[in-house]
């Protein structure tokens, strides 16, 4: 993964790293416009601090580090400016899946599959992406921070600005929704 001098030229960064950074951002923020903005900010920041790039890591790793911070800042600001409302908690996922007795309305299918093999199938990865996109953005963001980034509940709470109980409710909703979507769109 060595870089020659060419890779240090910002003009090639969009072609070399643009899509990678964009996909990275989109996975966490779930919004195309915001993702583009974050990528642009990252590249700008990279240009301005190019002198401080030590060359120890690859350019891509370095730019990704900048992007990571920008993503967290964006999320923190967004949740501070627009705190999660009761409405977002009163999401219909649970009612749609369970009846008045708390039993499954439609049941849970048998996914006979090898998890390893599934993860390697591009189409399954796409299906997960599509299902993530069907979740409400804020739910998907919280889920991404906790499950994809592996942040602790405490850290997620600080960014999203809610209690750990609330985070657990959000994560549960995300899990219910994701699994259900995959059942319908992939395994059926």
């Amino acid at each position: 993964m060595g870089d020659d001098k060419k890779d240090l030229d910002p003009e090639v960064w969009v072609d070399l790293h643009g899509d990678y950074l964009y996909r990275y951002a989109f996975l966490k923020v779930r919004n195309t416009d915001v993702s583009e903005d974050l990528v642009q900010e990252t590249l700008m920041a990279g240009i301005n601090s190019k002198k401080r790039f030590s060359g120890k890591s690859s350019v891509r790793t370095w730019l990704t580090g900048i992007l990571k911070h920008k993503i967290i800042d964006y999320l923190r600001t967004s949740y501070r400016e627009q705190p999660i409302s009761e409405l977002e908690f009163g999401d219909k996922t649970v009612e749609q899946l369970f009846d008045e007795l708390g039993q499954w309305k439609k049941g849970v299918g048998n996914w006979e599959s090898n998890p390893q093999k599934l993860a390697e199938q591009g189409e399954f990865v796409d299906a997960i992406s599509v299902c993530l996109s069907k979740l409400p953005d804020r739910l998907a963001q919280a889920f991404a921070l906790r499950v994809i980034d592996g942040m602790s509940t405490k850290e997620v709470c600080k960014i999203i600005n809610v209690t750990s109980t609330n985070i657990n409710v959000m994560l549960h909703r995300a899990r219910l929704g994701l699994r259900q979507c995959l059942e319908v769109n992939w395994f059926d």
Partner: protein
Amino acid sequence: MISKILGKLSISCKQATALASESFERKLTLKERWQLRYHAGMCIFCKRWKPQVEMIEKTLQTISKKFESGDAPEGKGMDSEAKNRMKEAIRREQSH
């Protein structure tokens, strides 16, 4: 006596999945673990639920690891218009 205990262990599917989710976040109490086990023993749906969710999360973590190693799994990238705008902005910034 036994029916009283079983009564306390009885939870709905809605509660069982909520507990299963909680188990991803913290250690369940002994009572909670028994409730989950008891229910999953009788309900095939709930028995399937947690491993399926685990598999989804594992796949997402695999995707994440790919990203961390600099690899971009497939997905939509930016359209060429957006890319050109960015290149323009970079050129402007560089010419300062």
